[in-house]
């Protein structure tokens, strides 16, 4: 246990300077806004009083370092300030949005794993077969489709042609679990396309490598059939390390806000919020979103590192 704690501590020590650098960079960004920040936010028609009031409210009239120190002080008791126009606590809005984004990310990751793992197992066993070649082509094509193309295509097929799902919008799970899934399906699918291809390629190539190992030969020599060798014990588990890494990367990417997908399907998640915040120049909100992204990134990497030791006992947690 203490070993694990120490390992987490060392990784946090790497992550903390990253957090400070990024959030300070965001605080610094405000100083580059043309005119004064409040002037840039309110536009040319704003009265000098309104500009001065807004500058004072967000401390934009203070030196950068002092403003950043205030932000950190607020952060210490989870106060990230207020949103620009609705004047809600940023942390409340963020929490609400994160629930939606997390659901979407979870669905997308689940879809990706359910599809990619069995397919990778099958094609690793039958390398060079027709399925292997077809999936190789499909997966490399999917990796070249940016999310702003896949959302358009997914919506073209499922809402315009098949009319099977609502085009945009969101219903929370508490209101109606069934409608929630109906609204979540297309965005999750659009997110999953890319991740599925990524997971599939990595897992397949790791499986192929593991199948060449001596212990697989031994297991086969003992008479264990091919399909059982590949089942969890022998081949799948040692092949998981890269997949776990990519899973961490993907989870970080999706939790940090799938900007395009949430924007396109009008979903009230972190990504949708960041677009709204850019539209009104809500720098406070943007700083909070970026800070959240960094925290998620650092936490996921700690989890991924710990997962290694669990998957492969030869890896010691350092």
């Amino acid at each position, binding site marked *: 246990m203490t070993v694990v704690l120490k390992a987490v501590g060392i990784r946090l020590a790497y992550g903390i*300077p990253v957090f400070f650098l990024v959030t300070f960079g965001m605080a610094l960004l405000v100083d580059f806004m043309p005119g004064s920040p409040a002037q840039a936010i309110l536009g040319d028609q704003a009265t000098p009083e309104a500009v001065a009031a807004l500058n004072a409210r967000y401390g934009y009239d203070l030196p950068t370092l002092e403003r950043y120190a205030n932000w950190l002080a607020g952060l210490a008791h989870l106060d990230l300030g207020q949103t620009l126009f609705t004047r809600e606590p940023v942390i409340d809005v963020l929490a609400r949005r994160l629930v939606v984004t997390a659901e979407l990310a979870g669905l997308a990751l689940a879809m990706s794993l359910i599809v990619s793992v069995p397919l990778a197992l099958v094609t690793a066993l039958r390398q060079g077969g027709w399925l292997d070649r077809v999936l190789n082509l499909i997966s490399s094509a999917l990796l070249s489709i*940016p999310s*702003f193309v896949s959302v358009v295509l997914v919506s073209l097929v499922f809402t315009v042609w098949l009319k099977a799902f609502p085009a945009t919008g969101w219903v929370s799970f508490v209101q109606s679990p069934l409608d929630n899934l109906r609204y979540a399906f297309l965005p999750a699918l659009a997110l999953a396309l890319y991740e599925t291809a990524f997971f599939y390629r990595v897992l397949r190539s790791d499986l192929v490598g593991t199948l060449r190992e001596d212990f697989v030969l031994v297991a086969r020599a003992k008479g264990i059939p091919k399909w059982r060798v590949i089942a969890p014990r022998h081949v799948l588990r040692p092949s998981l390390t890269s997949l776990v890494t990519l899973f961490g990367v993907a989870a970080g990417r999706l939790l940090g806000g799938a900007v395009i997908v949430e924007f396109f399907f009008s979903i009230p998640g972190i990504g949708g919020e960041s677009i709204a915040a*850019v539209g009104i*120049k809500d720098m406070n909100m943007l700083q909070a979103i970026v800070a959240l992204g960094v925290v998620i990134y650092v936490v996921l990497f700690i989890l991924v590192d710990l997962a290694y030791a669990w998957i492969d006992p030869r890896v010691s947690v350092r």
Partner: protein
Amino acid sequence: MTASRTTAITTILGRRRRVGRAGRVLFIFGVAWLALLVLAAVFADVIPGLPGYEEKIGSFAQGPDLSTLGTLLGTDGVGRSNLSRIIYGARVSLMIAVVSTLIGLLIGVVFGMLAGYYRGVAEGVGTIVANTLSALPPLIMLLALVAAIGTSLWGITIALGVVISDIYIRVTKGAVLANAQREYVLAARSLGASDLRIMLREILPNLIPVLASVVPITMAVVVVVEGSLSFLGYGIPAPNPSWGGMIAAGADTIRRYPGVIAAPVITLFLTVFSFNAIGDYLGSRTDRRTAQI
């Protein structure tokens, strides 16, 4: 973040795959497509028969019509030539891709070289810089930048260059570490060469193959992020055409004219696919496994 980072980078970039004939065919296809695109973009103004990107050449949302060059790929939602807008859009996309990759390369080589050669404090600084850049979600960071300083071609290009430089820092540092103890470096040092000379004249030329294999990958990333920004309406300001903007405009009218998005979607796909295919091929011919930090 040592172990996972290492493995992440080696997994994504480093596995030395054997690329068979299919890989070589895709590589040649990718080079041909990009060459065509570059030529069209460079000579857009003097291609005979190519209408201007704002010129209305017919009714809206026409399908492909092979009779004139302008209508070859049909027209968009307001009757402008898709072909012309794609070619002029390629100018912006490819220019940003090239310039920001050069910026990323410059930052990456400087930090990575110092980190790999001097180790110690320089290595710590390089690690923190690379980790910081990796932790930044590129799109959200660019959106924050746009919110602060507005849409500017140079702002976006430089920011993209900074965002992608983390990969060059890691790759350079790993390759320098692998080279710093080699005999040729020792030989140069014993002849009295300065550190700067060793880094630039001895080690740097040996990094070129590895770095070159990363270039197409970051170019694909840049094209995608720039396209995303344009798609969201925060890219290069109108009236300049951009692929992302064309796809966004086509998506608005997709119920009535689903065909309008076909041309920009296919162009974008082929471009990203070409970059990836070239990157895969070059990657299979160099060893990027040393890209650790």
